[in-house]
């Protein structure tokens, strides 16, 4: 007889709220054809409810009931923290992309619904303790994002971005699920905690299958987080997708991807770390160096941010190598806010649905629009990891973790890559402040301004007083 799993509504409440919110947006749109402001309210309330429910989870969560739905879902601090980052990214992403969404007219509701669905998928992914569950979350999120990439379908680049993202993304998902199958073949387990207990308790007779499985899972997720050498899609997608929403797309995929990597590697197969540590360290080195060096020669700010994203993936990997989940979480939270902020600037400068964002458009931005340029400067310096910004604290955390694990050489490569990375962030700043403007006229800035205010505040305040967020991240332990 099959016993039905016990239901723990709280464990999936935020994801449910997001899904229902997405449905509500579509229904309201069909029924009343309202103005964009109504959609803003509905989606805003949805995000707020989801955030509230996640906070309720944080208050409620105790180790004993961390697992729900017969072990499919966990409610550990790690899931809750990442979920909060995802939901915050959704709110900021919608604000940054609002002018694009509103400009879509009747299709605006679709865009909002897709964003909310993507978040609900990724939110389920970071909370899953089961590899199949994780795959489902990943697919819900990814498929929604493929469509988002093609929303500006009048433009060829947007279609190209959507197709590229779809093809390479589904390929990556297939690799991931193949890896899951092999892990199951090797361990007879889908549950991450179960795999951990199995590896701790038994000697596995055919570890090669597990090794290959873990390797494929890592490769699949490395695609999603655009770590080198699996990053080829990122520049084209970042360049072609609608400017307002790229920041959101890049952020949630990266946050969820890294959460999954950290959960599988650091919880599931930590006992096999001897075999995967060198691989992850290798991916980290290649990402940091390749991303930083290729970003140096980009003439388009969006491609530059894409390659910088590759190097950031490498930096976050150093934290994974160090096994420092708190440092990884802190880094992800900070990077999420900064990345969305950076793309909010791109959306203002290039226009909300434009393709590309040539660096020439930024010439003399410091004169044309001092506040915008100032905000971008702070965000770029934060991404570069200069002290007094939260980016420095984040880098310091992951580097310390890697050094403590005996990966001193990785830290040395990482600090050198940081200097290279600094050079290309500075290059944008040089263009903004030290060149004369080519275009005149003031830029129109909409709700993006709130995103920028928050991104700057997060960069500086958490740079000087990092304790609040660091403590939170330190409490957000995986099961």
């Amino acid at each position: 007889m099959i016993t039905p799993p016990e239901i723990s509504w709280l464990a999936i409440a935020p994801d449910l709220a997001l899904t229902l919110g997405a449905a509500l947006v579509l229904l309201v749109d069909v029924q009343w054809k309202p103005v964009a402001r109504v959609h803003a309210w509905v989606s805003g309330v949805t995000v707020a409810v989801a955030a509230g429910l996640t906070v309720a989870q944080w208050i409620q969560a105790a180790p004993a009931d961390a697992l729900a739905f017969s072990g499919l879902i966990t409610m550990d601090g790690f899931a809750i923290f990442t979920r909060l980052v995802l939901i915050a990214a959704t709110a900021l992403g919608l604000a940054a992309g609002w002018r694009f969404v509103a400009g879509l007219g009747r299709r605006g509701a679709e865009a909002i619904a897709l964003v909310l669905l993507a978040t609900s998928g990724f939110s389920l992914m970071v909370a899953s303790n089961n590899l199949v569950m994780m795959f489902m979350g990943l697919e819900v999120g990814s498929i929604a994002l493929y469509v988002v990439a093609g929303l500006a379908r009048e433009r060829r680049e947007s279609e190209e971005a959507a197709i590229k993202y779809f093809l390479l993304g589904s390929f990556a998902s297939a690799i991931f699920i193949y890896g899951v199958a092999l892990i199951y073949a090797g361990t007879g387990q889908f549950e991450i905690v179960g795999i951990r207990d199995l590896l701790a308790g038994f000697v596995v007779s055919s570890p090669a299958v597990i090794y290959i499985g873990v390797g494929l899972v890592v490769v699949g997720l490395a695609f999603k987080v655009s770590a080198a050498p699996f990053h080829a899609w990122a520049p084209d997608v970042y360049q072609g997708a609608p400017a307002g929403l790229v920041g959101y797309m890049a952020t949630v995929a990266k946050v969820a991807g890294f959460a999954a990597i950290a959960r599988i590697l650091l919880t599931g197969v930590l006992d096999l770390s001897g075999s995967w540590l060198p691989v992850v360290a290798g991916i980290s080195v290649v990402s940091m160096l390749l991303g930083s060096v290729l970003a140096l020669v980009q003439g388009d700010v969006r491609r530059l941010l894409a390659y910088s994203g590759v190097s950031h993936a490498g930096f976050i990997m150093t934290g994974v190598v160090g096994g420092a989940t708190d440092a990884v979480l802190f880094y992800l939270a900070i990077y999420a806010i900064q990345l969305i902020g950076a793309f909010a600037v791109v959306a203002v400068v290039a226009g909300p649905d434009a393709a590309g964002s040539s660096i020439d458009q930024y010439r003399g931005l410091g004169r044309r629009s001092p506040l915008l340029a100032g905000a971008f400067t702070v965000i770029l310096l934060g991404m570069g990891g200069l002290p007094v910004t939260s980016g420095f604290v984040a880098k310091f955390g992951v580097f310390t973790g890697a050094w403590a694990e005996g990966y001193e050489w990785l830290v040395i490569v990482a600090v050198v890559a940081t200097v290279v990375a600094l050079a290309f962030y500075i290059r944008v700043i040089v263009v903004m402040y030290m060149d004369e403007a080519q275009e005149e006229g003031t830029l129109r800035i909409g709700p993006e301004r709130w995103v920028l205010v928050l991104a700057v505040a997060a960069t500086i305040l958490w740079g000087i007083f990092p304790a609040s967020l660091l403590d939170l991240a330190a409490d957000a332990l995986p099961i």
Partner: protein
Amino acid sequence: MLTALVLLPVVAAIVVMLVPGGRREVHLPLGIALSIFPLALAGYLFWVFEPAAGFQYVDRVTWYEPWGIDWHLGVDGISLPMVVLTTLLVPIALAASTSIDRRIKEFVVYTLFLEAGLIGAFLSLDLFLFFVFFEAMLIPMYFIIGIWGSERRIYAAMKFLIYTAFGSALMLAAIIGLALTHVDQTGSASFALSDLAALDLSVGAERLFFAAFAIAFAIKVPLFPFHTWLPDAHVEAPTAGSVLLAAVLLKLGTYGLLRFNMALFPEASVDAIPIMAILAVIGIIYGAVVAIVQPDLKKLVAYSSVSHLGFIVLGTFALTSGGLQGAVIQNVNHGLTTGALFLLVGMIYDRRHTKKIADFGGLQKTVPLLAGFFLFMTFASIGLPGLNGFIGEFLVLMGSFPALPSLTVIAALGVVLAAIYLLWAYERVFTGVPDKDENKALSDLSAREIALLAPLAALIVVIGIYPGLLLDKITPSTEAVIDHVVEQTDFVVPEPGRIADVHVAGDEG
């Protein structure tokens, strides 16, 4: 009090930022006026400083407990003169910037942030905090060179940034390594200088960490062969940028070697004496020889910095009483004289819009006061007895001789070469008959410009005649550095390397 000293320039910068951009004529005077407050506080600090009390006025507040990071400031005889020098030169550098005609508000703001970073770096007793200040000040300096510099400013600014950031990146790795070693050995995290200095490092680890710190500071000094960014940065920077760069920013390198390398890695420091001393002496001679042939007045002064800073490093790594005293006092001297020389070059440039030595000649007929000040600073830089440069170079050479006799003899050549390049430059620029029409109608120094140079000249004379004013404050701290090295290693200070009567730690001999 020290926290206030760091935060005053920040507050000043914010005040200037809040003044609307339309009021162009307000920003610079406001900035100058506000930068007097840190100067006054630093002057008071100098007055109440107790030489024998070690680190004092310590402010220590926990910043982030789990990582062991503190807001930890303190002042001793090595950092005190640097802080006073910084606060003195910022108002002067700002007041020398009246020729800046665009974006003056940003300029004042960046300069004040730079001041805060510099003071913070000199006062930090926590390595994390030090690194934050050390790295954060790159950005204002980068903007000062990159926005207000001359033609190749962006190249120079980038070169400056990349060089320095590369050095400090390695230092960051070493700081992480040290802190984690502290966790291993004591179970708790700490970045405090005193805690990390007490660590028991293996020889290999100590040497690697020493190298990481030393490269970071050697780039900053700059020590040969890491000096190539300096002439570019100096030549392209605006006058105020050059003054602060030469007078204070470079001193972070020499200060860092003395404060951090000696304290954290005494064993490796002793082992590294030959390398550092040889590099220093190469720098002295190389900088001087290259300075002789420079066709550009500003570049000449820049290379003279390479030469003069070599003396400071030589004195530091001689590890004798005289050497260290000389190093610290020469930090101050070089700040005063080279700062003044850069001011003078800036004043000449404002009048003639050229820095080429060949474009001048006979200027002392048309601008006698300017020529007089230039000659005075030249003498101070050469080390004429009675002026401050003599005290510093004499102490360095005297202190280094027992430890490194042959290198000291070569280094002494640098003094002679300094006389050649500076006096020859003076001769070509100021003496003779003014044969070019542009040079005949120049106006002499204004009252404002005299007011900028006079305090520097006065201090040069005061230190030259009564060095005890500074030495009394410096000596107990430099002796403490030597004591620390002697305690931690089997290093023996060569006779007669110690000054018995000021040796506070109870010399049994």
